[in-house]
């Protein structure tokens, strides 16, 4: 995935055309980024149905509010911001709702269309399970910075908090994840660094 990089028309140009009345432009823009936007929504809300709802809210909102985009950030940053907002919104609503176990469903969606080797899927599921133990704000920060690779400055725009807050949410989240994912590192890069000490034994 990740069709980042130079494309023409540029994201900004597509958005401009959309605002000018071009019927195709927004669709093209959205399709260009939708896998990443899906990833951020799914990982933030941890439920495929809610993620689909959140992404739909976000898409409609971006479609209608495109004229408000002032170009202070990249178009992708703006899109991610809208998706993260919609996702956190969903979570707030879900918090006010009796929990429905969606784990099986989630895992299926997360593993869907997966041609990865088995161990990569396991890693992904373990990571996703670990992510859902985090508070939503920390999770969103970690997803945006560590998983999607946004800079702290861009993440601050996306999450609408200061850069310091982004750093501290990420730091807290990494510390919490450490004991849950330490065993996975061997899988990923056998040759690398330390033994999988689980936060303790000298």
């Amino acid at each position, binding site marked *: 995935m990740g069709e980042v990089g130079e494309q023409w028309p540029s994201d900004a140009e597509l958005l401009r055309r959309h605002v000018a009345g071009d019927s195709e432009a927004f669709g093209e823009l*959205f399709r260009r980024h939708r896998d990443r936007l899906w990833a951020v929504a799914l990982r933030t809300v941890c439920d*495929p149905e809610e993620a689909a709802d959140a*992404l739909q809210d976000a898409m409609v909102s971006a479609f209608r509010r495109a004229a408000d985009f002032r170009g202070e950030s990249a178009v992708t940053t703006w899109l991610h911001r809208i998706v993260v907002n919609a996702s956190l919104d969903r979570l707030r609503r879900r918090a006010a*709702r009796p929990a429905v176990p969606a784990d099986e469903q989630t895992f299926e969606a997360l593993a869907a*269309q997966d041609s990865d080797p088995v161990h990569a899927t396991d890693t992904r599921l373990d990571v996703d399970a670990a992510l859902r133990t985090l508070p939503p704000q920390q999770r969103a920060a970690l997803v945006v910075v560590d998983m999607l690779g946004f800079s702290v400055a861009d993440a601050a725009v996306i999450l609408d908090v200061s850069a310091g807050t982004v750093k501290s949410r990420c730091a807290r989240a990494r510390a919490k994840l450490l004991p849950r994912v330490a065993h996975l590192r061997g899988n990923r890069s056998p040759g690398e660094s330390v033994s999988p000490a689980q936060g303790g034994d000298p």
Partner: protein
Amino acid sequence: MRGHMTHPDTDVLADYLAGLVTGRRAAMITAHLADCARCAAMADELAGVSALLAAVPAPAMPDRVAQRLDAVLAAEVAHRNESERARGVSPQERPARHRRTGRGGFRWMSPRVLAPAGAVVALVAVGGYVLSSHGSSPQLQGAASAAGPATSAQPAASAQPAYGKAAAPNATAGSLHGTSPLMSPAELPVVVSPVDFLAGSLTQQLESDLRVPLTARTTRVATTTIQACVQRVAGRALVLRIESAHYEGQPVTVVVTRASQGEEVQLAGPGCSATSSHLLATRTVPAGILEP
């Protein structure tokens, strides 16, 4: 304190690695890491968390989600085009837009809503829909029953009203304003609305629709499917009204809840159940808009 310190805990190390620890404290941690293999290993592990996360492949968007989003987007585009065309087509109607006072001003309705109309002042056909002037809400009464059987596939709007208009208006009115003991969604009647809501004019349509008095509408008892759906959609929010209507031709359950500012209106599609809200649209309307 001396140059040595006790082993920093994971949070502190994580802050340190994120550049959040400065000055003397940072220097102490730096020195400690140089001396303490265990903490140095922990710091490596922490750095490894980010690397691990970056390496996890992102899940591709499932096809069904992609299709759903494409459909919603197509509806948005169609609506934008339509409302732009509408603005161009009947410039003489435009001042009506500014007369949006009182009972919701003009609204968009599907033709079938207007079929029994007597009070309609001006009709301008635009793109298959009809723009009516205001003051026509009583006609909805007649339209409600006429609209029913249009889509028998849906559990919502098609069933014959079990209660007819028997739902006690007073009790309902109390709960609508949150002043009487809360009615659970199960007790709230489902108001059958004849309106086919459209994405491009949803807010205006909702504001008109919700102002129609309950006495002018057919109501019926919520099915268990609708109850489950409402619970899923509303969560713990106070449910003010449940309606069966259509949105872009699809049967929807309209759930109105009390929000922090105004009332939140959510339109859930036919797939709405206890586990999936299948939300098609969400709007906020002014508080107190609901007619008892």
